[in-house]
C-alpha cells in the first residue's frame, strides 16, 4: 500500500512560473471587463482634465464680458456658449473639473482613512470597545446622508474647507461600519488564531494578517461612494453652501445658471451633464472593481 509512505513520491523537477498574487489576478480580470475598462478611461480623462485644465482651456474662465452674456452653443469663438456673466462655458467646464473632482474625491479618501482606522480597531479588539465605538457611529448613521451634509454645512458655513469637513464626516460612518464588519469576519478565522498562538502582538497581527485581507473590500466600497460624494458636493454648491463664486465648479454653475433655463436651457444644463458623466464613469468603475475582486479563486 504505497499511499502509506510518508513523503510525497519524487516528481521530476519541472519549472514553475511564479504564481500570480491576489492583485495580479484582480488586475487581469479587470482588464477583461470592457465596460469597466471604458469607465476607467473616462475617469482617467477626467482626472487629466482636472490636473491640466487651466493650461488646456482656450480662454480665461474668470473673464467676464457683459456684452456677450448667454450666447448659445456654437457661437463664434465659444463652442459651448457663454454663461450669465459672459464667461466662456467650455473653459469653465474644463477648469471646473478640477474643483468638482477634488470636492468629490477628497472627502472619500479622508473618510476611508479615518473610517478604516475606527472600524478595524473596533473589529479587532471586539467586546465592549467595539460596542461603544459602533454605537457612537450608529448615531451619525441614523441621519440620512444628505440631511447630515447639509446640516453640517449649514452649521459650519459655506466654503470649500467646511464642505470637505462635512462630507468627510458624512462618509465616515458607512466606511467604519464596513471596516468593522470585514475585520470581525477575518478576526474569527483560524489563521488569525494561529498568529495569536505564535505570540505576536496585536499590532503585528493587524499589520501582517488583517490589513491585507481587509483593505481590499473597504477600498471597493469607498470607490462606490465617490460618485455619491461628487453629486453631494456639487449639490452643496448648488444650494450655495459649498464653493463660492466666481470659482468654476459644476454644481455652482448649475446654481448661477438656473435663471437662464428659460432663455438658454441647454447651456444651463451643461454643467449637470458633466456631473452625470463623471458619476456614471465612477459607478461603472466601482462595479467593475467589485466584480474583479469578488469572485473567489
Amino acid at each position, binding site marked *: 500500500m504505497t499511499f502509506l509512505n510518508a513523503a510525497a513520491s519524487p516528481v521530476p523537477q519541472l519549472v514553475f512560473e511564479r504564481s500570480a498574487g491576489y492583485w495580479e489576478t484582480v488586475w487581469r480580470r479587470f482588464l477583461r471587463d470592457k465596460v469597466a475598462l471604458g469607465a476607467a478611461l473616462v475617469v482617467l480623462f477626467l482626472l487629466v482634465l482636472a490636473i491640466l485644465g487651466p493650461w488646456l482651456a482656450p480662454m480665461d474662465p474668470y473673464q467676464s464680458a457683459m456684452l456677450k452674456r448667454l450666447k448659445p452653443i456654437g457661437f463664434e469663438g465659444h463652442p459651448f456658449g457663454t454663461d450669465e456673466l459672459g464667461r466662456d462655458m467650455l473653459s469653465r467646464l474644463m477648469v471646473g473639473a478640477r474643483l468638482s473632482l477634488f470636492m468629490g474625491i477628497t472627502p472619500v479618501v479622508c473618510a476611508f482613512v479615518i473610517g478604516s482606522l475606527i472600524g478595524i480597531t473596533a473589529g479587532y479588539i471586539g467586546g465592549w470597545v467595539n460596542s461603544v465605538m459602533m454605537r457612537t457611529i450608529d448615531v451619525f448613521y441614523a441621519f440620512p446622508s444628505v440631511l447630515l451634509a447639509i446640516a453640517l454645512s449649514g452649521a459650519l458655513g459655506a466654503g470649500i474647507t467646511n464642505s470637505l469637513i462635512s462630507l468627510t464626516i458624512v462618509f465616515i460612518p458607512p466606511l467604519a461600519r464596513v471596516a468593522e464588519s470585514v475585520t470581525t469576519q477575518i478576526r474569527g478565522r483560524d489563521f488569525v488564531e494561529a498568529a495569536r498562538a*505564535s505570540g505576536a502582538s496585536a499590532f503585528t497581527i493587524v499589520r501582517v494578517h488583517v490589513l491585507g485581507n481587509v483593505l481590499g473590500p473597504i477600498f471597493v466600497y469607498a470607490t462606490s461612494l465617490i460618485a455619491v460624494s461628487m453629486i453631494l458636493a456639487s449639490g452643496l454648491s448648488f444650494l450655495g453652501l459649498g464653493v463660492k463664486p466666481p470659482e468654476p465648479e459644476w454644481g455652482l454653475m448649475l446654481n448661477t445658471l438656473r435663471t437662464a433655463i428659460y432663455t438658454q436651457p441647454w447651456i444651463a444644463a451643461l454643467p449637470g451633464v458633466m456631473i452625470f458623466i463623471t458619476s456614471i464613469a465612477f459607478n461603472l468603475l466601482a462595479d467593475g472593481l467589485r466584480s474583479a475582486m469578488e469572485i473567489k479563486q
Partner: protein
Amino acid sequence: MTLAHDDRDDRAQPMLSVRGLVKHFPLKKDLLGRGAGVVRAVDGVSFDVFQGETLGVVGESGCGKSTTARLLMQLIAHDQGELVFDGQTVGSKSLPLKDYRRQAQMVFQDSYASLNPRLTMEDSIAFAPMVHGLPEREAVERARDLLDRVGLSPQRFAERYPHELSGGQRQRVNIARALALQSRLIILDEAVSALDKSVEAQVLNLLLDLKEALGLTYIFISHDLNVVRYMSDRVMVMYLGQVVEVGDSETLFKHAAHPYTQALLSSIPTMDPDRRTETPPLAGDPPNPINPPSGCRFHTRCVHAQPICSEKMPVLAPASHGQQVACWMHVAGAAHTAAPAGPGRVPNQEAVA
C-alpha cells in the same frame, strides 16, 4: 533573542500538567433576564501529558475537546484552574505567555482557514520566528527547511498561495508552521479530520516520523477512534466537559472501563460479523452543556445507572487494568451494586455539582 530553550527532559515530571480547568461561556440574556445561563464547556478537567508521548483525546461533538485545546494554548482564558508546563505555571513571571507559546503550538482542523490567503507558504511559516526575533533571511531559510521536512519541495511550494495547494498539502504547511518555533508540544485539533482517507494516512505517518525525528510530544484530538488508536500512547475520553476515563491506549481499547467509552467503542462500524452491534449502545437524549445532568453526567444515558449516579459526581480513580475511570462502578465501597467491595467510606467524594 535565541530560540533554543531548556529541555528539562525529566521523565518523572509531566511536561504539561492541567489541574481543574474550568471554562463557562455566558449565554445572552434576553431583555427580561431569562435564559441567563452558562454553557459549561469545560468543567473541571485535570490530566498530565508526559514528555515524548502522544495523548489522544476523544469524545462526541460538544464534549469540550476543542475548547480544552484552546485553553491549553491560552487562546481563550480559563475561568479556573492551573496550567503547569515543565514545572512552571504558564503566564507567571518564570514562564511568560510569549515564552510558553514558543513551546506549545497548534494545528487546526480547517487547513484552508488556517492560512492567510494573501501570504505565500514560506511567509506564513516564517511569520512566527520573525515575531520572536529571527531575522527575515534566516526565518525564510528555516521555513524552506521545514517545507522540505514535511515533504513539500521548497522550489515548488515556497512561493505558492493557499488556494493553489490541496487540502493535504495545506495541512502539511500548517504542521511546518507549528514546528517553526521548535516547539516541543504540538496540539493537533482534528488535524486530519477534513482530509480524504488516503491523504489522511500520509499525513498521519508524517506526524509519526516528525515526532520521532524531533522528539515531539503530541496531544491528538479526534472523534475518529481508529485514528486515535493508531496514533496514541495514552487516550483520554471526555464527556460533557469532563474527563471520564484516561489510560494506556491498547488497554483502553481492549478493556474500556467507563460505560461511555464502551458505548463509543461498540459504535465503531466493523465488517466482522461476530462483532455486530445488536442493541444501540447509548440510550436517552444527547446531553445539554447548559444544564448538565446532576451527579455523574452520563447517568441519563447509562444502562448501569443507579441512584448514587444521579446524586454524586464520581472522580477519577484507578480501575482494574491500570487506567483511571470516573465511575461509581469502579470505586471500592461505593453505593453501586457493581462496585468492588472496600472500606465503607470512600475518601474525597465530591458533592453534587
